[in-house]
């Protein structure tokens, strides 16, 4: 039954059941993939009160409030079923047990009436709790984390591009003693994730005196075998004639690298740049190990710390999560095709 779903082509021009199954699958995919993120985004605009409601409302909503003459605080509006069966909008002054004291906002002078709480129903309106976003910026060091992440991502990516392209250039353009050894070394490091050398890298970083500095996050991963490989593969496709022509043109080796090879390798550099930005922006385990002072936290570490501390303050946590994923989402919207083809061609991420 599933079989014809698995073949590549259908008869042209006809919409048969396999197409319907396919589109149903894709629609489910859209819901499964986008749904959770959409839910996060919607939730991040809810007030703390709306967040703990069960069942949750779909859109961010808040209770309507009204300022009533004679009352200092704005009062919450309710729709109240009167004893005679009619329905009236009233403001709640306070709630006492199962009774609520309410006042008619149209006639503030009238004496408050007691209403059983099951006879009233909150009046709600769509409201975005922007304070979820603005307050953490002031109250917590969210801005600092953001800046730290930005610094790490930009500087690390620049260093990665520079030193990896230099190595790739050496390994693709020249023949020299030890080239095979260098290539083997690169392949070797490909298999060693930082996961398994966590503690000793920590020692090295401390010995250099980079403890609790952003450089401790930037430097260890700057030389990536993945990057060297990707760039070398691309540089190998550049015509040798160009290099030789440049040499005949009196270009120094550095100028050949900087003025001929680098511009021509721009597509591969762009792919590596995007990978590096992704790795660095999202990096978690190593910063978690090496950054212990909150001034140097990156976004990911800050967010993780918050989810421990702010267990009860989901409204801040959700808003900050949205802000963490926003740059990535924007990059994705603009560079989607570029990223996916880059990954499909290299098989790396």
């Amino acid at each position, binding site marked *: 039954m599933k079989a014809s779903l698995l*073949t590549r082509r259908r008869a042209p021009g006809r919409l048969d059941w396999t197409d319907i199954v*396919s589109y149903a699958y894709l629609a489910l995919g859209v819901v499964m993939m986008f749904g959770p993120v959409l839910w*996060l985004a919607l939730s991040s605009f809810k007030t703390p009160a709306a967040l703990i409601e069960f*069942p949750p409302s779909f859109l961010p909503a808040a209770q309507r409030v009204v300022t009533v003459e004679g009352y200092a605080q704005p009062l919450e509006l309710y729709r109240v079923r009167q004893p005679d069966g009619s329905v009236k909008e009233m403001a709640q002054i306070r709630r006492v047990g199962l009774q609520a004291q309410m006042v008619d906002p149209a006639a503030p002078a009238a004496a408050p009436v007691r209403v059983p709480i099951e006879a009233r129903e909150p009046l709600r309106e769509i409201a975005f709790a922007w304070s979820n976003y603005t307050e953490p910026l002031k109250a917590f060091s969210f801005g600092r984390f953001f800046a730290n992440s930005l610094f790490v991502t930009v500087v690390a990516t620049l260093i990665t591009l520079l030193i990896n392209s230099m190595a790739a250039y050496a390994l693709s353009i020249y023949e020299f003693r030890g080239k095979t050894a260098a290539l083997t070394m690169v392949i070797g490091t490909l298999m060693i994730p930082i996961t398994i050398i966590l503690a*000793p890298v920590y020692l090295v970083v401390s010995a250099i005196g980079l403890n609790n500095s952003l450089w401790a996050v930037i430097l260890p991963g700057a030389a990536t075998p993945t990057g060297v490989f990707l760039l070398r593969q691309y540089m190998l496709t550049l015509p040798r004639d160009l290099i030789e022509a440049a040499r005949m043109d009196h270009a120094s080796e550095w100028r050949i690298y900087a003025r001929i090879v680098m511009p021509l390798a721009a597509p591969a550099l762009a792919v590596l740049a995007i990978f590096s930005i992704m790795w660095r922006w999202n990096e978690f385990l190593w910063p978690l190990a090496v950054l212990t002072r909150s001034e140097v936290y990156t976004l990911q570490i800050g967010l993780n710390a918050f989810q421990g501390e702010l267990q009860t303050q989901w409204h801040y946590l959700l808003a900050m*999560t949205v802000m963490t994923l926003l740059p990535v989402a924007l990059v994705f919207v603009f560079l989607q095709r570029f990223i996916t083809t880059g990954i499909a061609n290299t098989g790396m991420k």
Partner: protein
Amino acid sequence: MSSTQAPTQAAPKPAREGLGGRVVAAALGLFDAPMAWLQRALGLGAMPYAFLAPNVLFFGVFVFLPIAINLVYAVTGGVNIYPSQRPFVGADHFRALGDCASFLDPATCREDHFWRGVRNTLVFTFFQMIAMVGSALVTALVLNRRIVARGFFRAVFFFPVLLSPVVVALIWKWILQRDGLLNAALVAAGGEKILFLVEPTWAMAWAIFVSVWAHMGFYTLILLAGLQAIPADIYEAAEMDGTPPTRVFWRLTLPLLWPNLVVVLVLVLIRGVQTFDEVFVLTGGGPGTATLMVVQYIYETAFANPVQNFGLAGAASILLGALLFALTMLQLALARGKSKEARA
């Protein structure tokens, strides 16, 4: 020795020399003079080494030196981080890790957390691999059909790949919490709330699900690229022969996709063994130790526990490293066997 080459202009696509290009050129230009001096001083023969030097330095300091230190850690004891000040203990750490009354029951082990980590990681990796490869394959097959807006749908499945593990975990934690969206749906459907992240089996299941959700798009891309590399005329020939669709799948699509499938399988395996971040943020390894992974054990042993036991962590990393090495060798062997077969 005359070469017959097409004009070079056909080969590389000329890059637009935009602002970024000019900035890069200017920045690299700063090194013109010093590097030219270096070339004069050392000669052309030394230039490849000069270009290689920064990377080698980084690899040396942050990869090779740490590997050496790790070996020292693994055979020394104490809490000092400096290898020279740690007493030699031989294979004690490995013995401690292997000290189990029964390997089937982590509770009987001295380092029970390590063995729980091992067991959880194996369970996680096994089921995750099935779910990941299965869903990625189905998605790739669907995306490879003639559908409208393929680019959009591909993007939909792919975009979680870019999200950070912390963000992924928090998104799902919010949905899976006691009063979350999923429980609301359950209640609305007449069911009862389930404490997804509190019940061990559910927690593991969701850890697997979330990791599949986050990474499936990546593997889908690889498989889709493989599917698209299969020439269309093969299918047309099969159609002319009246080959039934099932047979086309088993006898044509699957064998032709096999190299990509092997890559995906091994990558999933290698990544699965190293699982840490998403699960750590989602469940913290809990409830109890129900989703504690080996990497989390290493991290906690070295950093998060009150007594930082680098020796034990180092020994565990060496075991993990050996496993990863074996898996990578497997991948290389399979890839080589495959290309040999393709040539034959």
